[in-house]
């Protein structure tokens, strides 16, 4: 039956359409096709039959093509987001490359005592680097694909150059007169890179954070093998890394949005403030944890060979981490007050 053919065709087109408008478009296409078939039947004087319907459907076009005329082009990462994506990618690869180089350097340094493991160590370092790059690339593409999808759904209009027209071009921007609502590119990029570096270090290269207590034993024993590398931070600390990573990731996303828009809005200001508050709360929680430091005195003693020195160093470390946290909290609060102040003055 030709109506069945038309219905099947219509649902084939509808399959490829977004849910909201699907039923409406399907009804429209069905009505059009029926009109076309009827007209052809009138013109040729023949009754409507399957052959005629097939002919009309063929002329109307393949379902994918028809659906595409209603949805427009779909991109994984479209022309408006691509420049930012490329920028982020470059920054990220730079950071990962640097960290991998550092990691490789440390690996090489540590292997002096075990030359037989040299090949393995280097191979591991390269494999590590490869994995980090893949993971980072995958995550970045995923984040941008999600943003592209969200913008598509929101129906943001794209102008000729592929950039959303949000603000008007003002030549005064060239004189670098900073209006209160303008996003400071430099600051934002630095913060983004910092957050990304933090995420990479604390999640993929935690072993970097530590130290070699002293090289004394080297000189005494004459070999490199007694150089020990002590990781600084304890399990308790790493318990908080997921939360910190979340704050850092959201800061990165927010900064990307800010870089794209070029100016602050109430929404972005409020989001920044919330993120800062969240970060401060995490820092407070971490202060309450008894031991963020993984080192303990006996280990230090054996490494240093000096009990008194070990005790002093231990105290320095434990207190040092807490002081660092307190400084972070204070800095965070100052930042927070600044952000609130800017928001209040900008609103006026």
């Amino acid at each position, binding site marked *: 039956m030709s109506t069945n053919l038309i219905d099947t065709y219509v649902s084939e087109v509808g399959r490829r359409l977004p849910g909201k*408008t699907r039923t409406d*478009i399907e*009804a429209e296409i069905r*009505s*059009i096709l*029926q*009109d076309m078939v009827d007209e052809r039947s009138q013109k040729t004087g023949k009754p409507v039959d399957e052959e005629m319907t097939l002919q009309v459907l063929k002329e109307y076009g393949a379902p994918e*093509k028809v659906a595409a*005329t209603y949805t427009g082009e779909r991109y994984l990462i479209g022309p408006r987001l691509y420049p930012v994506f490329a920028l982020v990618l470059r920054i990220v690869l730079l950071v990962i490359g640097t960290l991998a180089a550092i990691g490789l350097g440390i690996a090489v340094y540590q292997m002096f005592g075990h030359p037989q493991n040299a090949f393995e160590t280097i191979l591991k370092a390269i494999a590590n680097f490869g994995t980090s790059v893949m993971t980072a690339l995958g995550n970045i593409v995923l984040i941008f694909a999600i943003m592209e999808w969200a913008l598509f759904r929101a129906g943001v209009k794209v102008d000729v150059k592929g950039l959303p027209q949000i603000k008007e071009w003002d030549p005064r921007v060239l004189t670098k007169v900073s209006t209160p609502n303008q996003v400071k590119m430099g600051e934002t990029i630095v913060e983004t890179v910092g957050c990304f570096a933090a995420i990479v270090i604390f999640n993929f290269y935690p072993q970097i954070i530590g130290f070699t207590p002293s090289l004394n034993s080297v000189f005494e024993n004459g070999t490199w093998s007694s150089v020990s590398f002590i990781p600084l931070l304890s399990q308790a600390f790493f318990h908080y890394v997921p939360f910190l990573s979340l704050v850092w990731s959201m800061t990165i996303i927010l900064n990307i949005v800010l870089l794209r828009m070029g100016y602050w809005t109430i929404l972005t200001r409020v989001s920044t403030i919330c993120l800062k508050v969240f970060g401060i709360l995490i820092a407070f929680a971490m202060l309450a944890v008894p031991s963020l430091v993984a080192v303990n005195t006996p280990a230090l003693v054996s490494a240093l060979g000096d009990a008194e020195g070990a005790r002093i160093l231990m105290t320095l470390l434990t207190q040092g981490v807490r002081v660092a946290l307190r400084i972070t909290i204070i800095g965070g609060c100052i930042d927070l007050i600044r952000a609130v102040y800017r928001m209040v003055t900008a609103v006026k």
Partner: protein
Amino acid sequence: MTNESFDNLILELRRGVIVLAVLSQLEKEQYGYSLINGLREHNLEIDQGTLYPLLRRLESQGLLQSNWRIESDRPRRYYMLSNEGRKLLPRLKEEWAGIVSLMKKLL
């Protein structure tokens, strides 16, 4: 220049006038198919793949209004200029007249 590139140039040229052509025909109510035939009679060939998405777009922009009507047992979607569309059409026509005289001088 290949045939295809020439055809593309012609397409680009025509693309500019399609919206005005379509709007000019919708001062009274029409359904999609009658619109195509009407334009065809004036020697303006337009592909359904172009027209129907265009009508939807113009409606979402507020220039057209549409409603479904059941005629001879079948629902049909009728389009017509909205109030805003009616206000806009004379201005578009004026703009077009300006372009035509400009091109006449250039060519």
